[in-house]
């Protein structure tokens, strides 16, 4: 018996759970603050340092953030969800289709009048979010029950959602977009509304979701088990964690978030841009990885993901104000992703 073991353990020191996630958060927050400070100083008349500019940055970030929050849970379980971008799009298409079908007589709806908007809107929103959740449920079920690699399963669902969205919005004819209009009330409230503190609704929704999911991840059984499953899947199973159903819930949640983002996107842009979202999955994964969540599972945080989602948008706005081609944003973000994964690898060596 060692001397250390023979004596009483000393009083508990500050908990060290996810210390690495925490220190990564600090670094990445410093990067974000430095970028904002840099662009604020060098921009002409400090145009970057402006409430309107910040609101726009937050607005553009919010949608990717919703996807990235769902993706954070998935990646903490050591999984991946490549389907969120096209599931978002499909959810928006389905929502608009349901709203058009239930909104009133076809002739009125085609001219932008929705006599039944009161019932059509909730139905459409529920349908959009439901489609997302079903997509996620399918992902999770295939990954767990059939033990298929998440990468392949979600790539398949990515393609299926893309195809279904195209079919539904074009009526089957190539290139013929037939996405019906949406009620103005929908666009003005959820889309461009400024409900709280004059902030866009999308930003408010994303903030609330981020706060709730942060609490879920750090304070609840669901969150703790998400980390456990990602850290040691078989071990968690042996310890009595219902691993399969947990992972299915996690993917379903990611799909739910994609559905929510799809509905909000529909409200914001009045229609769903089919091609504009196919790479949203990669933006979401980039935000998660930049935010310090390990692709190997077991560590990560919502706070990191929030910061990680802001960095690409800040770069884009900063470059635009400076008159630098926004293509440089892609180059810089790519470099940041590589550095983030490099850090992850170094940490990983210490963890095992």
């Amino acid at each position, binding site marked *: *018996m*060692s001397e*250390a*073991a*023979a*004596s*009483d*353990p*000393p009083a*508990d*020191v*500050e*908990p*060290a*759970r*996810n*210390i690495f996630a925490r220190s990564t958060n600090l670094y990445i927050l410093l990067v974000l603050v430095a970028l904002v400070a840099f662009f604020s100083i060098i921009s002409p008349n400090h145009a970057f340092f402006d409430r309107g500019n910040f609101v726009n940055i937050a607005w553009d970030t919010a949608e990717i953030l919703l996807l990235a929050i769902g993706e954070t849970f998935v990646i903490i379980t050591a999984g991946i969800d490549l389907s969120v971008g096209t599931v978002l799009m499909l959810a928006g298409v389905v929502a608009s289709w349901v709203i058009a079908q239930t909104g009133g007589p076809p002739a009125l709806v085609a001219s932008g009048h929705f006599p039944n908007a009161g019932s059509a809107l909730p139905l459409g929103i529920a349908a959009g979010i439901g489609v997302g959740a079903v997509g996620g449920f399918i992902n999770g079920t295939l990954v767990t029950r059939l033990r298929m690699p998440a990468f392949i399963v979600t790539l398949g669902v990515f393609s299926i959602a893309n195809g279904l969205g195209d079919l539904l919005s074009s009526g089957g004819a190539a290139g013929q977009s037939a996405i019906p209009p949406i009620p103005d009330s929908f666009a003005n409230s959820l889309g461009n509304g400024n409900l709280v503190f004059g902030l866009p609704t999308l930003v408010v929704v994303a903030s609330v979701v981020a706060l709730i999911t942060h609490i879920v991840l750090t*304070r*609840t*059984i*669901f969150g*703790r*088990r998400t*980390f*456990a499953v*990602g*850290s*040691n899947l*078989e*071990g*968690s199973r*042996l*310890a*009595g*964690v219902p691993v399969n159903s947990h992972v299915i819930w996690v993917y379903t949640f990611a799909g739910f978030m994609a559905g929510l983002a799809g509905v909000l996107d529909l409200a914001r842009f009045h229609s769903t841009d089919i091609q504009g979202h196919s790479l949203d999955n990669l933006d979401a994964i980039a935000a998660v990885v930049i935010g310090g969540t390990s692709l190997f*599972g*077991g*560590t990560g945080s919502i706070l990191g993901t929030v910061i990680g989602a802001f960095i690409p948008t800040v770069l884009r706005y900063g470059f635009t104000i400076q008159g630098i081609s926004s293509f440089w944003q892609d180059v810089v973000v790519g470099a940041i992703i590589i550095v983030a994964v490099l850090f992850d690898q170094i940490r990983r060596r*210490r*963890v*095992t």
Partner: protein
Amino acid sequence: MTAGTALIPLLETRAISKTFGRVTALRDATFSAYAGEVSAIVGDNGAGKSTFIKILSGALTPDGGELFLDGKPVRFTSPQDARDRGIETVYQDLALAPALDVASNLFLGREARMRGVWGRLGFLDDRLMRERARQEMRDLQVGLSSVGQPVFTLSGGQRQAIAVARATAWGKRIVIMDEPTAALGVRESGMVLELIKRITRSGIAVVMISHSMPEVFEVADRITILRLGRSVRQMRRAETSMTEVVAFMTGASVGHVAEIER
């Protein structure tokens, strides 16, 4: 039988057999484990130790023979079934989540909820779990600076101790350990062996597989020797020697467990 030993074994097997296709892993495994004792299972490679331990922990069902728990015949349908009846297995790869802290690992799968509405919403009572984890670590005399430490920062021996603590913290009566010191250095092995002795004092029956004869002779009260799928002997440690055990293991001496039921 010495005084203080329960007359009825906590866990007992009679003539257990198991075949995989044409391979007979176990022919006749007869074994008993008593409360408050360490029962070691030794044998050469291929003697059937792993198969036998999987049958005890419910991971495999035997083809023949009988299992008794508290003297009553039982049949385990799954590891969970065995666990529900108080048999916990500490696996060689430990089944801990390295990214989680010690307290979370102890409570993995049985997390403590807060009281009232928050608890029903799934909120964790981290304070309670930490407190109980600290208590458990103190009782088992595992030296840890903090139960908030992630497990990956701990040594192999400390990890083994936490795996053992998880097995004993939930009122388990039988703890099966598969090569508990295989991956450990000398000092750490010593710590784990002390821990094994300590948990038996609280009335737990420990079933241990080991390759190391000195370790077996240090902690075991009872030694069962498997050879070619047969339990050739079960002996009290005090009444045998390493030479004798090795002789039975290698087949230099031949015996049968029925002859030594005394």
